[in-house]
């Protein structure tokens, strides 16, 4: 993990912040593009959440024995790669959001992450910037991801520092009534499962990337 910010990273941040200030795109657009660019498709954890939204009994199992519940989405934590020994700690906990409670996961000490069910961490999840700031200033950090929640929603930061691994189970969004498990799985993106975004109908990691027309196009 690189501790220092390189010149190119400083330049990227400067240009990005200027572009957001000028209204060329929003912080949420940027987050969405970053997620897309890292090619994270529907993960087994997304399917777990979608199944739980549809099946109250399965949801109960996710909240009480997530390791067992993982088997239903094709993940055996004791043998996650299909060979060899366990590659990670095997105590998965599912954090259930409600309309008045939102969870977000961080590991301040390194980058603990539920890899067997969610793949590798995004780069930002490993940065000291995210790790140091999320625990202390969760609302400003979430705002940088384009997520702003009202004060009546309790934000609960989960600092994953021991052998438990966590995923967030967001509230099923309005506008998804009658959807199938496959449709629901598509909108539970990686960032929703970490807790820095909320699922929205039409917002998936698999659709063609939208082209944003500049709000103030330059002249050539």
């Amino acid at each position, binding site marked *: 993990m690189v501790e220092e910010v390189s010149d190119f990273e400083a330049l990227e941040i400067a240009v990005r912040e200027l572009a957001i200030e000028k209204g060329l795109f929003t912080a949420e657009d940027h987050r969405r593009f970053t997620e897309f660019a890292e090619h994270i498709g529907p993960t087994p954890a997304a399917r777990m959440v979608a199944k739980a939204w549809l099946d109250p009994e399965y949801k109960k199992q996710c909240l009480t024995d997530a390791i067992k519940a993982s088997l239903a989405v094709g993940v055996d934590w004791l043998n996650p790669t299909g060979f060899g*020994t366990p590659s990670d700690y095997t105590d998965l906990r599912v954090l259930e959001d409600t309309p008045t409670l939102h969870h977000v996961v961080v590991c*301040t000490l390194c980058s603990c992450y539920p890899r067997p069910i969610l793949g590798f961490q995004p780069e930002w999840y490993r940065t000291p910037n995210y790790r140091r700031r999320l625990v202390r200033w969760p609302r400003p950090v979430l705002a940088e991801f384009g997520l702003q929640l009202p*004060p009546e929603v*309790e934000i609960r930061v989960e600092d994953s520092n*021991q*052998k438990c691994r966590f995923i967030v189970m967001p509230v099923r969004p309005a506008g998804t009534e009658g959807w199938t498990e496959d449709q629901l799985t598509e909108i539970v993106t990686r960032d929703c499962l970490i807790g820095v975004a909320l699922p929205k109908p039409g917002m998936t990691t698999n659709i063609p990337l939208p082209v944003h027309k500049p709000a103030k196009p330059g002249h050539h």
Partner: protein
Amino acid sequence: MSQHDRTHHATIATGKGDPQCFKGTAGPAKFKVGQTVRIKDLPDVFYTRCQVYTRGAVGEVAVVTHESPAPEDEAWGHVDHSEWFYIVRFKQKDLWPEYPAAFANDTLQTEFSERWLEAV
């Protein structure tokens, strides 16, 4: 363990999982869900996973999670003694004095081995 054994995890956790492989080795849990606890400020000369920002803070046990050797021991290959682990919930304003009063409901949870907790 006379030598640092880097393979203990693989040999004892295969087919069971870790921390599941330490189940039943810590005796009765000292704290229960809902109990108010304070995080001790113990010395941490070598290795710890108890964050400095939690030291001295008072919170509530949210989950009694599992049994395992404490990381302070396991880091050196000592896996003979297990402890219970607890997820403790703090009010953000009890951790950070400057946390905005407008968001008084916000909380933070993190996990401790039993040695770090004392009843309040």
